[in-house]
């Protein structure tokens, strides 16, 4: 069963806060990981691995560069969980 976008967003907020120290309240769907949230390339790897583990999905390395915003990541994870 597909995960709900709201659950995925809530989970991603926790992961990004844990990995990069960004307050969950400032993490929104339209925020860019690199430009707005200052998540560097190494931390992005951590976010991806933590998201895979938490949501039980695979995020292939060649897809990671496509996930520019938090919304992109939520959409990808929801689709992958379907």
């Amino acid at each position, binding site marked *: 069963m597909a995960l709900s976008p709201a659950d995925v967003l809530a989970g991603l907020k926790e992961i990004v806060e844990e990995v*990069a*120290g960004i307050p969950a309240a400032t993490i929104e769907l339209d925020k860019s990981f690199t430009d707005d949230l200052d998540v560097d390339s*190494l*931390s992005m790897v951590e976010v991806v*691995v933590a998201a895979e*583990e938490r949501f039980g999905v695979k995020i292939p390395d060649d897809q990671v560069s496509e996930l520019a915003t938090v919304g992109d990541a939520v959409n990808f994870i929801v689709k992958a969980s379907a």
Partner: protein
Amino acid sequence: MSRRRVVVTGLGATTPLGGDVASSWSALLAGRSGVRTLTDEWASTIPVTIAGRVEVEPSEAMERVEMRRLDRSEQFALIAAREAWKDAGSPDVDLERLGVVIASGIGGVTTLLDQYDILKNKGARFVSPHTVPMLMPNGPAANVGLELKAKAGVHTPVSACASGAEAIGYAMEMIRFDRADIIVTGGVEAAVHALPMAAFAAMKALSTRKDDPKRASRPYDVDRDGFVLGEGGGILVLEEYEHAKARGATIYAEIAGQGLTSDGYHIAAPDPDGSGVQRAIAFALRDAGLTTRDIVHLNAHATSTPVGDVAEANALRLALGADADHVAVSATKSSTGHLLGGAGAIESVFIVKALQERLAPPTINIENIDPAVTIDVVRDKPRALPAGDIAALNDSFGFGGHNVVLAFRTL
């Protein structure tokens, strides 16, 4: 052109005695021990269960998010470097004239081992992308260099337990050779972990006095039975003399010279004839323009091993001759344990404090001094150092036969 002189204008530390220089120094003078029984889960799996953990955990001085991408050795380096930099007055310096030389004997060994556990237990995908920057031995120097935006060069000499002293000597040379005006330098170590401790224990290098942790590190005592591992580090801000004067910096002491030799004898044992140590002392004195008459204090390497302490003491007696009678020798590892690559650095911090306050710190835990020790060891209580121009030496030796002697003097 006369040689550029190098002075100390800032100090920082985090040690088993305290989270900064002031608390470490006052605990040292009070004769305290920073050695304790380990409470880590793995401690019951190894034969030695005591060590000198830092008195103040990095989590009390640093944000969680910053900590999680730094090896413990890098956390120590940043904490001590921030203190030293602030102590130096956060100097406004041309960044192309600012360098960093910070050593570690072993590097990010706890990161390496923890990530290996993750690799085995969870798989390659879960190995942290921060692993390499955390485990590399130059990581402490690199992180401090990054924070200060230093552009004159960032370096990490490695010579086991002489690493910290070698870093400080290298930093002095960088300023002398006009590569920089200010260098943040020192050494750190964070190797309190089952594997390095089991490995040192396998060499029979560690004290097994686990029922009496505070009295386990006992350099020069007849019943010494090995060193006690410590962690933490010391950082000094070195500065070209005229540069320091021009900005009105507080100058604590001058670092006047260094002597470096190698034994060519054994991978781990000290050369019993101590000639490498004697030559290093002679070179340091010559480099500093000092004689044995000028030396009033020496912070010895003296790790509390049966062979090493006497070999060093004999070498000191031979190198200093009759003048050894007026050298107050302190073995501060009796209080801190052995900080490996951080040892020469924290002991240099203590020497600068000793010159500044004219007080040689005590060596604790000598119940019965080894009769083979013919040098004047400061025992139990601090000892006043004479007025006037005085100088002090710091001895550091490392597995591999590395001998490093640094010379400091009042200014």
